[in-house]
């Protein structure tokens, strides 16, 4: 369980990125953190594994104050996948890259080998096992970075902008992977600007603006609210936006996913046909 209490954080340059943020994420939840550029999303997730320590307020991971543990200790529970994979790739082969953290955490050779194979298969990277991570495409590098975190099986996975640079197919795979990890009981937290991706996943949405949480609730509720999304400088996804245009002709217009929208629209078409 992650419990963030009245969190304030000021960078050495004087910029106050978080201003009294409260958030509680229970085990096994799937949360998307959204908000404008500079809202403090990345600053917040860097607190979750102790890279940043609060200027004021507290963060507890499983009832332990992050101030009382090292980054390595917390990271074993909370795996943070950075936005830019090039900030972490350094090994000669993809295999070594994925094994790096496992070695740091002191796992045995057999366990490392098993976990690396598992993570590479999970992300469809087995064929690149002995290649240099530097010759891979942007999307593949991003997946190597993700595999390198999933390898030690942290119970909380935090993803910073996971969909950037991924084509539609990879995005869909990523969505299925996230849902699979979540259904296996892991907590998944992702920071993203990709409203369509969030609309497809339908997680709990936490909207941030100017270092605070301004809305928190199911995706259906938050992403169909024009006023609140506007405050966080994000656009309502296409389906709720379309349904909003049709609100005069259909009673239910708070719809987020494609299948519900299709059913409602088919119903309208049928009624229209009957009338004519």
């Amino acid at each position: 369980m992650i419990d963030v209490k009245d969190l304030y954080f000021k960078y050495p340059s004087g910029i106050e990125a978080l201003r009294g943020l409260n958030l509680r994420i229970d085990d096994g939840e799937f949360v998307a953190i959204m908000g404008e550029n500079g809202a403090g999303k990345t600053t917040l997730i860097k607190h979750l594994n102790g890279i940043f320590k609060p200027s004021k307020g507290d963060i507890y991971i499983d009832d332990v104050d992050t101030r009382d543990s090292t980054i390595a200790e917390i990271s074993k529970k909370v795996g943070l996948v950075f936005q830019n994979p090039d900030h972490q790739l350094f090994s000669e082969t993809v295999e070594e890259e994925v094994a790096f953290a496992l070695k740091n955490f002191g796992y045995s050779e057999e366990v490392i080998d098993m976990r690396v194979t598992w993570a590479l298969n999970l992300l469809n990277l087995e064929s690149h096992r002995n290649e240099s991570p530097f010759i891979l495409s942007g999307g593949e590098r991003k997946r190597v970075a993700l595999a390198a975190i999933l390898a030690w099986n942290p119970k909380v996975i935090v993803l910073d902008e996971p969909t950037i640079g991924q084509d539609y197919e990879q995005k869909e795979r990523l969505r299925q992977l996230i849902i699979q990890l979540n259904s296996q009981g892991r907590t998944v937290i992702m920071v993203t600007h990709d409203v369509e991706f969030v609309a497809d996943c339908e997680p709990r949405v936490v909207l941030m603006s100017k270092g605070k949480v301004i809305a928190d609730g199911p995706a259906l509720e938050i992403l169909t609210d024009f006023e609140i999304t506007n405050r966080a400088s994000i656009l309502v996804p296409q389906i709720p936006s379309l349904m909003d245009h049709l609100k005069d002709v259909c009673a239910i217009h708070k719809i987020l996913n494609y299948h519900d929208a299709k059913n409602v629209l088919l119903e309208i078409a049928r009624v229209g046909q009957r009338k004519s």
Partner: protein
Amino acid sequence: MALEGLKFKQIYSPIHKIDPRVKFVISCIIFSVTLLYIELIPLILLFTIQVPLVYLAHVFKEWSRSIKGSLYLTIMIFFLNLIFGYFSSGYQITSNAITYAIATSVRFLTLVSSFSIFFLTTSPDDLGLALQRARLPYAFCFAFTTAVRFVPVLADEAQNIIDAQRSRGLELDRGSFLSRVRKYIPILIPLIVGAIRRSLEMAEAMESRAFGAKDVRTNLYELEMSGRDWMVLIISLFALLFSVYIRYYVTIPSFEIPIPI
């Protein structure tokens, strides 16, 4: 971070307006005068005359950051000099040695301060223009300004890389000296690869905007020495002559820190 104390900040102040060449000459004058003296009083004087300039340029916060950043080295310089003084004066700490150690520390701070003011108040572009005026090839000037401009960017990137690797269980402050040095490999490789990748991308972007199409290049802004610039330059040169004169023809009042025993 100490590097912040060298990062240019665009503000309008009388110091920012001075021609970069003049500012460079002033920095060199302060540099040479600082090396001319080893007596405590003139060195303290040299340090303090820079403080009003810092206020005038509105960069006190950044300047004090660079001073704070160099304090660690300053303390090292102080103790090293004190230890040498201790050995050379027959295994005892004399007030002379303390004074000398303080003077060398102040000397170091004065040098840091003068370069900090120069870099804080001179934009890399102006610096590049000044180099061009000195008839250096444009490609060289461009490389220089780009290098200066990318220092803070690289520093940010290094911090991000450190954060990313520490999130993967890398503990930089544990282990023996050798193993700690080896732990910097996962940080240096992404940093260097990133810098090379960025420079290649930048070269492509520059070439697609016709970089190097013509040998002689025009500039949007030209450097012109104003009357005020000439005045500042002449005053600084007189100050240099004056300091040289004092150094060789006037006895400098000696001041020794008494030993606090």
